[in-house]
């Protein structure tokens, strides 16, 4: 092995797979885009707009698109990395370091996407008048700004400490809707 070179390259056979994956992801986003644009013309238009579902769906779609762009960027970075291999097919440590930096940056972007999703859900609940939705927005913003509160942690259910009938309540949704529903049920 060359000094400062390693053989840990993404194999060329992986790349067609990743390109196909990117295309598939794009087609899923397009399909969801069509589904979203279909909604206002449907019978439930008024309800959709009243419940602010449409802006939230557009927001989530945008985030999905950002995720796809992330994947495409990584594929492109691998293509560049492969193109810069030396004659022996090795990748220099400097190139690998760049790849690593990019991977970490994309990982951060991934976390930001989840945080933005949480903020979006919180804002949607807030605009609908949900009592504790602001807390969700605050937690999402905190996850966006601080490394000490990872976004995946917020995805987990607040129901672990709470008796529940249905077993599924990610914490953000618990904050956005549970209290209000409980109080209205009690009323």
């Amino acid at each position, binding site marked *: 092995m060359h000094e400062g070179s390693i053989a840990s390259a993404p194999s060329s056979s992986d790349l067609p797979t990743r390109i196909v994956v990117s295309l598939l992801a794009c087609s*899923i986003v397009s399909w969801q885009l069509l589904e979203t644009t279909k909604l206002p013309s449907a019978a439930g238009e008024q309800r959709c707009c009243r419940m602010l579902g449409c802006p*939230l769906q557009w927001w989530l779609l945008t985030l999905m698109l950002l995720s796809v762009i992330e994947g495409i960027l990584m594929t492109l970075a691998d293509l560049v990395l492969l193109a810069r291999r030396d004659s022996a097919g090795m990748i220099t440590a400097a190139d690998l370091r760049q790849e690593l930096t990019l991977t970490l940056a994309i990982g951060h972007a*991934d*976390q930001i996407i989840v945080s933005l999703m949480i903020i979006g859900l919180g804002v949607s609940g807030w605009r609908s008048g*949900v009592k504790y939705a602001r807390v969700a927005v605050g937690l999402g913003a905190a996850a966006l700004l601080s490394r000490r509160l990872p976004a995946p942690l917020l995805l*987990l259910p607040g129901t672990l400490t709470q*008796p529940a009938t249905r077993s599924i309540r990610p914490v953000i949704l618990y904050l956005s809707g*549970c209290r209000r*529903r409980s109080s209205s049920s009690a009323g």
Partner: protein
Amino acid sequence: MSCLQRSTRLQAELQVEPGMREAQDSGCFSLRCALRPLLAVALLEALYSSIPPSQLEEGMRQAKRDGTLRPLAEAAGPDADTVLLLLDTMRPEEILDAAQQALGELVQFGVVLALGVSGHAHGLRHARLPIAAAFVPGLPVSFAVVFYFLLETRALAQGSQRGTLLPLHSGGQEPRIDHTL
């Protein structure tokens, strides 16, 4: 209360909700039980952020001196040299970052898996697609997470009573379930 007891209780509670009969057919699946270990992993991820990089640097130096890194690298796979070289080129902050990101991805993956299975059991349309997306290599796992939430949001916006999450838009809707026990 054990997972089994909770699951039995859940089954009994579901009997009063005709719209959720499908969930009964899905067997013993408690999302709480599924998500609890993920919570531990997420907490571990949060804990990692409190490790000072200098401490990790010292630990890495010590591990190199003792020769304990190589067996670990060899256990990770056949490219032990590559792993060691990679560790050499990484700063302690980057190693912490990478570890945190790996744990975060694991949590997100588990959440999508659990929600997808549960959503499917509750009759949410296309609930298995985000699971498939989570398994696809080269596609960020956040894609699958957002995808699942989009499906839930859409199902709710279309007036469907299906799905497994709380209402994202509770305004103007009658409560579906009484959560107060």
